């Protein structure tokens, strides 16, 4: 494989995205074992693709996403905020602690001028206490937005679930999955007899033309006999699918069931 072939065929990108035929894949692997430049490019491309996918999954590259800010810029905003708040607090405390106390004569004179009622006089130490303690009603500046961000992330990452049931007949509408636009994956579940002998399970997805889309392996069934598989959203476009579930034990695969699945994206 020459460098020109690699460049013209976009081999590096297609290798990382698993779009090469097996013999092309092998040829490129043998090439980068001998070529430092191509190896470095392959590593960079792999990191880049992984980072884009993760950012996309988090919603950073969505249409209505906020402008991304370079990571180092984020360091300054809270730091400046904290520094400013600390400075103001220190200045306030300093003024309250170190201000010159009035002489009794001055106090008496000001009281004479204002003619206050005895009940309105506030002791100096009470002033300091009020100034030092923050108002209990006011929340911390960044607390609510931070919690909200975390809740938003959780909502985005919550995958829709569908419990697959075997088709009952011609009139049956099949299993339906509504996949939100921001979903990164969906969970397929089937129920099997509790105490099943299989050590793991495979979910094979086929499109409406019976072409294989993806295969996902799942671990043991739960104690209630539920088997789940997490399927990446990119494999679930609008349309009909056939899902085959196979049980695996001692190198043998046994077909457990076949399920129709209709995927809809709102």
């Amino acid at each position, binding site marked *: 494989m020459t460098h020109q072939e690699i460049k013209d065929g976009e081999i590096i990108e297609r*290798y*990382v*995205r698993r779009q090469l035929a*097996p013999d092309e894949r*092998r040829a490129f*692997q*043998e090439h*980068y*074992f*001998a070529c430092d430049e191509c*190896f470095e490019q*392959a*590593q*960079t*491309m*792999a*990191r*880049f*693709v*992984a*980072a*884009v*996918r*993760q*950012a*996309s*999954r988090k919603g*950073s*590259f*969505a*249409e209505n*996403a906020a*402008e*991304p*800010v*370079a*990571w*180092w810029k984020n360091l300054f905003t809270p730091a400046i905020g904290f520094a400013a708040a600390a400075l103001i607090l220190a200045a306030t405390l300093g003024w309250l602690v170190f201000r010159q106390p009035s002489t009794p004569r001055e106090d008496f004179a000001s009281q004479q001028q204002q003619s206050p009622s005895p009940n309105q006089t506030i002791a100096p130490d009470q002033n300091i206490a009020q100034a030092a303690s923050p108002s209990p009603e006011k929340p911390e500046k960044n607390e609510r937005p931070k919690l909200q961000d975390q809740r938003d992330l959780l909502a985005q990452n919550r995958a829709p679930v569908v419990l697959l049931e075997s088709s009952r007949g011609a009139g049956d509408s099949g299993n339906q999955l509504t996949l939100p636009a921001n979903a990164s*994956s969906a969970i397929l579940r089937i129920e099997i007899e509790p105490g099943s002998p299989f*050590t*793991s399970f*495979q979910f094979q997805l086929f499109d409406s033309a019976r072409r294989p889309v*993806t*295969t*996902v*392996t*799942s*671990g043991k069934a739960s104690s209630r006999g539920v088997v*789940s*598989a*997490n*399927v*990446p959203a*990119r494999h679930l476009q609008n349309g009909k699918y056939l899902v085959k579930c196979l049980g*695996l034990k001692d*190198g043998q*695969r046994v077909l457990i069931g076949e399920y129709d699945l209709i995927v809809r994206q709102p």
Partner: protein
Amino acid sequence: MPTSLEILSNQELVTRIRQGDAEAEAMLYEKFSARVYFTALSEIHSKEDAEDARAETFLRVIQALRQDKLRSADSLPAFIVGITLNVIRELVRQKYRVDSLEDYEYDIAGDGSLEQAMLDAETGRALEEAASQLKPRERQFLRMYFYEELPKEEIARKLGIKEERLRLIKSRALQSFREIYKKMTKP
């Protein structure tokens, strides 16, 4: 005796390993370790499995070289690739009960994804910085192309950008990411 500062050719490495030179074996590991690990990671997307595969691969490679099983030193890279892929196949077959790498789907219930395998702290930050230099439509293109895996024609139509321009955006973003990542990871 060679030192790690000397760069030995594949021929010299093979000859010295055949003679039982332990330092040459260490140099072989140093030369090909990252490639073996990356290959394993590309196939199985699990750091743990990739490390196991790397260890087993070098055991077999060194054993084979000591036993003079390599016909020509020129084919040393291909030889190591072959052993790497065999080790990976055996590992996958044993652990996940599939017959071939083509049958194997690495997204196992959300575990062992490409992203988890390839990402480190610097990668995420480098992309943030590179993406901050892109326009919103350009970022959307990256998402549609690499995450949703839509074809370029469809993306061009949806975003109202010419296909030739999409290639430029991709290459500029990648180049920017490469430079930023290099700066971040410079020793």
